[in-house]
């Protein structure tokens, strides 16, 4: 159902070799501050990759440039070979990148369903004239949007909130709704900015499963920012670490986890065990 109505094509497990997203030497300067410094990242199609790094490392800024919200100072961003630098955010979305926000940004006067329908907007065919004349195309579009909303709500498990105002949802569910809304745009790639923030370990587990399903069932490539190491380490196939805007490490989870530079800058000593309690005394 999902595959046929909302997302085209059958889905195979990830790991194909082609990069869907190629970011090269991307840089962003705010006045004197270089928030992102010549970062290069290639995301293979149908993979789950993570960007991690200490607070203020430039992760969100990196996402903002990819989605066209900030104009990069330098560098290039290619989605399936197409240059994205210079496109407006809506054009980027149309090109196939969807995202969620670190600080949830749902449409506050709309219900959950309507929020998702907006996400579907850019894929609908009907025009102004169709809407006024109520043509067949209009009805088809409306049906498609509503159907997409239904499917997405089901997919993330929020069906019972369908007609509730989005911002009345509990925090964690708002995050899921944002994901559903982003998925409704039928992206090739979805960028998740701290999707597990505000979730307890149990909910994080569910989220992990959801993210996997997004990739496996919908065939969407996933790039995420997270501070929850348990999630990152178990979910990601590839990890890039930023610090002060610069890439300090990358590789498979276990490589990154054991990289001293990462431990020093980000994880702290106890992290190697995959847990973050620690023995040493407070500094």
């Amino acid at each position, binding site marked *: 159902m999902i595959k046929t109505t909302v997302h085209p094509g059958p889905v195979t497990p990830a790991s194909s070799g082609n990069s869907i997203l190629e970011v090269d030497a991307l840089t962003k300067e*705010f006045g004197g501050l270089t928030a992102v410094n010549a970062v290069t990242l290639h995301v293979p199609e149908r993979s789950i990759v993570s960007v991690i790094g200490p607070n203020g490392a430039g992760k969100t800024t990196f996402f903002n440039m990819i*989605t*066209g*919200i*900030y*104009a*990069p100072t330098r560098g290039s961003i290619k989605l399936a070979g197409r*240059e*994205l*630098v*210079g*496109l*407006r*955010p*809506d*054009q980027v*979305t*149309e090109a196939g990148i*969807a*995202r969620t*926000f670190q600080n949830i*940004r*749902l*449409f*506050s*006067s*709309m219900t959950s369903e*309507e929020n998702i*329908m*907006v*996400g579907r*907007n*850019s*894929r*609908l065919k*009907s025009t*102004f004239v*169709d*809407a*006024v004349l*109520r043509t067949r195309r*209009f009805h088809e*579009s*409306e049906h498609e*949007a509503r159907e997409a909303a239904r499917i997405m709500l089901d997919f993330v498990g929020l069906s*019972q*909130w369908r007609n*509730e*105002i989005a*911002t*009345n*949802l*509990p925090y964690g*569910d708002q995050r899921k709704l944002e994901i559903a*809304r*982003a998925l409704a*745009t039928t992206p090739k790639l979805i960028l998740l900015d701290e999707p597990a923030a505000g979730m307890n370990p*149990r909910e994080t587990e569910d989220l992990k499963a959801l993210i996997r399903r997004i990739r496996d069932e919908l065939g969407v490539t996933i790039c995420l920012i997270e501070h929850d190491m348990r999630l990152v380490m178990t979910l990601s196939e590839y990890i890039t670490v930023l610090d002060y805007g610069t890439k300090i490490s990358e590789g498979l989870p276990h490589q990154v986890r054991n990289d001293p530079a990462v431990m020093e800058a980000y994880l702290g000593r106890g992290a190697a065990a995959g847990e973050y309690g620690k023995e040493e005394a407070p500094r």
Partner: protein
Amino acid sequence: MTVATPAKPAVRRPVVKPDRTILLVLFFVVTSVLLIISHQPGMMKSLGPFGDVLRNKVVEALVVSLFLANVLFAYLWKAANWAKLLVGIGSLLFVLPLAGQTDTSLLDLSIQIMIFAALALGLNIVVGLAGLLDLGYVAFFAVGAYTWSIFASPRFGEVLKYYGENPGATGSGTLAIGLVLTGVTAGSMLYIRGLHGRMAPTRLSSLSFLLAGFGLLSGIILVGRSILVLASGSAAAVASGINPGFFWLFLALSIMAAAIVGVLIGLPVLRLKGDYLAIITLGLGEVIRVLANNLGLYTAGSQGITPIGSAPVPWFNSLAGSLGFRPDQYSLLFLYVLVLIVIAVILLVNVRLDKSRIGRAWVAIRDDEIAAQAMGVPLMQTKLIAFATGASFAGVMGMIFAAKQTFISPESFNLLQSITVLSMVVLGGMGSFSGVILGAAVVTLLNLRILPGLGEASANVPWIPQEVNPANFNRFIFGSILVAMMLLRPEGLLPNKRVARELHHEDDQEDESEDGNASGLKQGGDVYSAGLATIKEDDRPGGER
């Protein structure tokens, strides 16, 4: 202990509305009878003291208001469909024109209400749905009005005469050049636009787009000018305006003209947010008025254009004549029917747009521009559509207004008018179609009936001194009513569900009016976006560079 499941919202029990068919029909009959009697001097005379009561101007204003409330109740109350239809159609198509036969001012009033209702509906799209605060909305009304007036009055002849006397170097050669220029530039603009759809715009391509735009503008000016010069020979033929048969064509032209002006104004300013937009639209509204005041050749400046023609509809006139209307009422009656049709169409368009992809996009950008954009809503385009749609409603009504008044001058298009329309929207309930129509009706009735009625009724009451005669305090009374209504029903008379949902004035959430700070808990109060740009300028979205 079980795994937590999210709290289900408490289900609100739907309010069961009682069926009011009988009440509705009764109300309709009573108010109709009252309306007709109170506008039939002969009958009133025979009624004795009751007639005197009816003749009181305040009572009269109330009767008119109550009668118009029929339509409202037919819409609001739960009643059988036949009754709703009967009351709606009956009051608008039969009773009102019937009463208008003896009291033409009723027709005038109704037309005025519907004109304002259309304006309010148009502004509602811009402000209520898309969240763009436009304080210069009346400019589009002016554009529509002048589009028709210039041609349907002696002005056009004057313009042609002027160009005949001052042809400059213009001739058929200029026309050719102009046409070529227009064609080439328009073509290249389309081409570049297509290009931008496929690849990111570069500095060069944006620049050439702009350049082509200027070329197009000058091309159009050249073409226009040479047409005027070439046509100047027929100045005498159009000395009292063009053939009124063009009315129907101009109905479309006025829509287009207003929409184009809407886009032209919108292009530079729609990137601004909230109150930056408000003040700049206010300014541009004034600019249009001042231009109308200064471009004397076309608009007759402050002298105003008169007389302005209206459509010739012989069949309608003979129909009206056979129904007992006087010839001097034909035109007004015709405009009444026309405006009724137009507003029905406008309402339909509104409702349909609202429940469509575009309507959702409008609300989305109102709620959160960045998120909307990130969901693939093209900001500029969506806003421009809102602006142009809103403008086009004003445009067509401007034309009808001009035809009704037969005289227009820039004074009718001042800032106060924009503000009045805005107050209709807010008073009625932003975002709610029935609400803004009601708001328009209430404000217009207040201004044209109730307040003057108060003035009249009190003018000959000996104990009311002239200094405090309500007729002198229209602003005071109107202002007080505005304030009172806002305080009592901040969500509007017939609120839009979305807005009402945001306006949760519950005691639990600390009520700011008392002592606290909490209403911002859910920062939903904003119905148009915050006054500040969301992103630093140097971080403007890539595409807008």
